[in-house]
Every structure is written in structure tokens, then in C-alpha cells.
């Protein structure tokens, strides 16, 4: 046990001395989460703002006072379109469609001829395209109002034209779409843990073989299980440090949220942070062990990196199961490390409850995985040192 402690202290010091790698991992994993959060909030805030704005861009509104009157009664603000709107719509610089009214609008209406009103958008411009439906139904409303007035003048009941009453009701909150993206947050912390442990795990195993320091190390009177335990503890400590930091980084990240509805949906307080950490610490241990077991077979760090890609890929693809699987959460999800943590973190974010079993089962599986990996590394260590 004392030997394991000596190894742990040295390996941790060694890993923390690797400043450049550590800095990159810290920046990419710890800064990534809040950054994504801020970008997300910007996106959602933009959607909300446009829905609330009720602005219509029109060219030639001076030719159509009756339309202007209708639009203003619908509480829309009419703004003149910018001069080069066609070009700007094509280049996706304008995010609203533009209504173009000809100079003869009122005279044609007076003469009961239908004047042409064009709504310009570009199907290559998704922002303008998304506003197209709103503009079209607004103009149809004007059409309908005018038609009804004409019928009334001729003594026909407008109800004749309306067989059924149609009314549209959008149940989705403007922010709901954006808020779905907060499901990405568990994914980011998961990857942060994995990349945090990756370098240290590779360095203490394949790196040690590559440098030729494993053989002399094994000539010390320390048992192999103690040696592996010390190494694993150091790697896991680095992974856990990253896990804690990346979870805590979401706390201040939350203050940066610009969208109020997103802030309401993404409630990440000390309780959520604590639960995230409780879920991630065992996983950090298990992944450290797994990465070491993969890397001990390799002669160089480069080879180990290629092999570790399998683990990275598996961990990053597993969460997709929750997306592809339409049936929602299945019981077996909790039996797969990484997937279990993803599922449970998602549940924490939605404000759901975690039972004792939900926490205990993944913890137990992670402990088993870590122990099995360490046993494998200890068994392989001596054989590999002399090759």
C-alpha cells in the first residue's frame, strides 16, 4: 500500500508537470461547456427576439396605404426594405422576407383588378425562409378582409365563404427547440472526463514502455498490483479533477445565459453539479482503467493513441443510442457504463429524481470495470516490459 502511494505521488506530479497537454485539455474541456451554453443562449435569444419583433420589410408601402393600415392594425411595424435587398437575401445577410408592392396598387384595387404583390425570399436562406409562412398568412389575412368587405357591400354574408372556422395555434414555446440542445451538456462533460484521463493513461503505460522506463521500474521490490493501483489512482485523479472542474464550470456559465426561457429550462445549480460529479467520478475511474488496459498492449504512445480511439469512439457513440432509440429510456441503458451516466445526467437536467439504485448500479459497474482493467494491466505488465 505504501508502494502504491509512492507511485501515485510520482505519477500525479509527472502528469501535472505536463503543463502544455494539461492546459489544452483544461481549456478545451472546461471552457467548452460554458462556451457552448453561451452560443446556445445567443441562438435561442435570436429566435425569441425575431418572434417578438413583429416587423415586416416592405418596398413601396407608400403606394398601398390600405395595406399599411391593415398591417398596423395587426400590430406589425412596417419598415422600408434596404436598397439592395435582393442581393442581401441571396447572400443570407437579410433574415426576413421582403414584400414588394407595385406603384399602381391602390388604382388597380379601385378598378377591381388584382394587383401583384410579391414576397421575396430565398430557399437558400433558412432564416428568411422560416419567416415566409408568417408573412404569407399575414397577407392572406389582408386579402380575406378586403374580399369580405366587398361581399358585405354586395349584401352577401361572409359566412357563406367560410364553411369551417380555421384557427392556428402554435403550442411550442419559441425557446423549446433551443432548449432541446441542452441535452448536449452531459455529452460535453463526458468527453471532458475521457480526454482528461486519456493523456495520463497513455503516458503511464505505453509512454513508460516507449521511454524504456518500465523495465527498470519493475526491478524495484514493489508488487505489480500496488504499482498498477498507484498508476491508476493518479490517472483517475486527473480524470476526476477534470470532471469536477468541467461540472463546476457550468455554474458561472449559467449567469451568461441571455435567454430567460433557456435559463429557466437549464437549471444547473449546486444540487445538479453535485449529482453530475457523483455520477462522473466512478466513470472517470472506470475509463482510466480501460484506457490503461488498452494502452499497455502498445509499444508507443502513438500506437496507443490509435488504439484508444476505439474507446473514445465507443463513449462518444453510445449517447446516440438515446437519440436513435425512439422508445426513450430503456432499463438496459443503466447497465452500460457511459450510457448510464448520460441517461442519468439527462434525467438530472430535466429535474427528475434519482433513486439509490440508479446511483448504485452504475457505480458498481464502474468499480468492476476498473478492477478488471487493473487486473489485466498487472498481468500484462511484466510480459510487456521485456518486449
Amino acid at each position, binding site marked *: 500500500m505504501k508502494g502504491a502511494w509512492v507511485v501515485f505521488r510520482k505519477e500525479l506530479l509527472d502528469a501535472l508537470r505536463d503543463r502544455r497537454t494539461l492546459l489544452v485539455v483544461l481549456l478545451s474541456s472546461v471552457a467548452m461547456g460554458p462556451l457552448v451554453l453561451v452560443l446556445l443562449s445567443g441562438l435561442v435569444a435570436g429566435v425569441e427576439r425575431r418572434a417578438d419583433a413583429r416587423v415586416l420589410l416592405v418596398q413601396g408601402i407608400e403606394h398601398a396605404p390600405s395595406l399599411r393600415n391593415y398591417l398596423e392594425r395587426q400590430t406589425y411595424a412596417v419598415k422600408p426594405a434596404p436598397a439592395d435587398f435582393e442581393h442581401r437575401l441571396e447572400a443570407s445577410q437579410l433574415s426576413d422576407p421582403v414584400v414588394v408592392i407595385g406603384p399602381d396598387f391602390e388604382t388597380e384595387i379601385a378598378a377591381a383588378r388584382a394587383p401583384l404583390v410579391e414576397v421575396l425570399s430565398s430557399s437558400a436562406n433558412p432564416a428568411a425562409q422560416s419567416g415566409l409562412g408568417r408573412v404569407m398568412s399575414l397577407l392572406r389575412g389582408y386579402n380575406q378582409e378586403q374580399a369580405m368587405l366587398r361581399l358585405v357591400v354586395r349584401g352577401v354574408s361572409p359566412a357563406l365563404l367560410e364553411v369551417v372556422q380555421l384557427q392556428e395555434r402554435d403550442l411550442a414555446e419559441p425557446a423549446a427547440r433551443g432548449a432541446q440542445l441542452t441535452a448536449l451538456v452531459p455529452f460535453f462533460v463526458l468527453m471532458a472526463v475521457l480526454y482528461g484521463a486519456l493523456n495520463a493513461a497513455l503516458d503511464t503505460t505505453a509512454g513508460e514502455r516507449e521511454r524504456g522506463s518500465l*523495465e527498470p521500474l519493475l526491478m524495484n521490490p514493489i508488487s505489480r498490483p500496488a504499482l498498477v493501483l498507484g498508476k491508476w489512482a493518479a490517472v483517475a485523479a486527473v480524470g476526476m479533477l477534470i470532471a469536477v472542474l468541467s461540472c463546476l464550470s457550468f455554474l458561472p456559465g449559467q449567469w451568461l445565459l441571455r435567454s430567460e426561457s433557456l435559463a429557466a429550462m437549464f437549471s444547473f445549480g449546486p444540487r445538479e453539479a453535485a449529482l453530475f460529479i457523483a455520477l462522473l467520478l466512478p466513470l472517470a475511474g472506470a475509463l482510466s482503467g480501460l484506457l490503461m488496459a488498452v494502452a499497455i498492449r502498445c509499444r508507443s504512445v502513438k500506437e496507443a493513441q490509435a488504439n484508444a480511439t476505439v474507446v473514445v469512439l465507443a463513449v462518444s457513440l453510445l449517447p446516440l443510442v438515446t437519440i436513435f432509440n425512439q422508445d426513450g429510456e430503456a432499463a438496459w441503458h443503466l447497465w452500460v457504463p457511459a450510457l448510464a451516466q448520460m441517461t442519468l445526467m439527462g434525467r438530472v437536467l430535466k429535474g427528475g429524481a434519482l433513486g439509490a439504485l440508479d446511483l448504485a448500479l452504475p457505480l458498481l459497474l464502474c468499480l468492476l470495470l476498473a478492477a478488471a482493467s487493473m487486473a489485466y494491466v498487472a498481468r500484462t505488465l511484466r510480459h510487456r516490459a521485456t518486449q
Partner: protein
Amino acid sequence: MIEVIDVERRFVQGRGRRARVVQAVAGARFVAADGCITGLLGSNGAGKTTTLRMVASLLTPDAGRVLVDGIDATRQPAASLARLGVLSDARGLYPRLSARENIVYYARLHGLDDRAAAQRTEVLAEALDMRALLDRRTEGFSQGERMKTALARCLVHDPPNIVLDEPTNGLDVKATRSLREALRRLRDEQGKCIVFSTHVMQEVERLCDHVVVMAQGRTVAAGSVAALCERGGSSDFEQAFVSLAFGADGAHP
């Protein structure tokens, strides 16, 4: 004292039908006495490194025994390693740690406490003339500086038996001389048992009290340089070695 008694070791290369058995050591035997530098001399692939790895409990012999001060290296590896300092073929240091940290790490693994570890490091730094290196990271060390650090690392627990596997590989004249000087002092002042493997004749002629000649995994001759010259029938040690190592099997190069 290190006793190697009729040790054998084979390796299996490849798998399944393509597997090939290589008999790396097929009966090595020698005794390295205290207060004496024993040279293990052999050409490349003669089984020197494999034999020394068995002495260091890194490999288990298929047959035969290795005794370090009477302790079986296979049955009690921890006890035998505690009485052994090994400078192996692989001499990797930790590049992000200073020379002092590298040495203290091994001291702690040998069970020395912090004070004893620090004190031993100072003593060795003085003896190996490497005080200026101690607090530098080993990242940019020259071969000679690496060797000194690795040697200090393997001597840190003051072992009575020292095993060095081709220690002069890659060293320049100055570093080789200072190593030779250090080994002589360890023998004369502290009466250590030193085993030293090499394929360089001059090393053996200059340094060794007792020479063990290995060829194709076997010990083919043993004795002082003078005795071996006599047995090989030549006053030139190199010629004597060639006839001892290869002549017996008729495989003259």
C-alpha cells in the same frame, strides 16, 4: 554474491502454426563473488541480457536457479531485488522530473523514507560527480548524464550486488572512464559484487577480475583474462575470445 545455476529460458515467437521456439539461454552458469567485478562477455544474441533479466526477476527461468546472496530470485523476487541494483539495457528516465526526483522516486520504492532518500541522493551525486545535474529536468540530458542518473537511481538503496547490462553503450571515452572509475571504487571501497555484461573486449580487459564467456546461450568458459588467453591459445584477448566462443562449435566467423 550472485549465483546463476544452469539457467535455461526459451521464447515462443509468433502464434499458431508459425510459432517458432527460440532457446535464448541454454545452460548459463557462473558465480559472481563479492568484492569482485565479473564480466559477462558474449557477442550479440549470446543470451547475456536474458540471463541478467532472470537475475533481476523480470523473467522466470524455465530451468535452473538464480540466487542473490542465497535468496532465490524466482521464489522471493522482492527480497532478492532489495539486495540488487540493476542498470538494465533500457535506461529510461522520466523527462518531466528532475534528476533528483528520478533518484528519490526509486529510493522511495525501495522503502527509504524522505530523509534517507535525500541523504543517499547527495552521497551518490558526490560520488558520481553529478551535483550540477541534480535539479535539472532530465529532458535534455546527454547520454553520459542519463547514464549517471540511471546509475545513481539503481544504487540509491545501497545494494550489495550490482548488475549492469552493457553500461558503456553509447558513451564517449570520458563518460566510459568515469563509469569505470566509479565501478572500481564501489568494488575496492565497499566490496560490492558487480556483474557487468558487454561485448567490448577492452572493457573486460581493463576492468574485470573474472570473466564469463557466453555463446549461444551457454557459458563456454570462465576465469581471469590471463587464464582465458591461455585457454584460448593466444596472447591477444580478442583472438582468445573468438576461439573460445565460436571455435568450440566450429562456427568460425
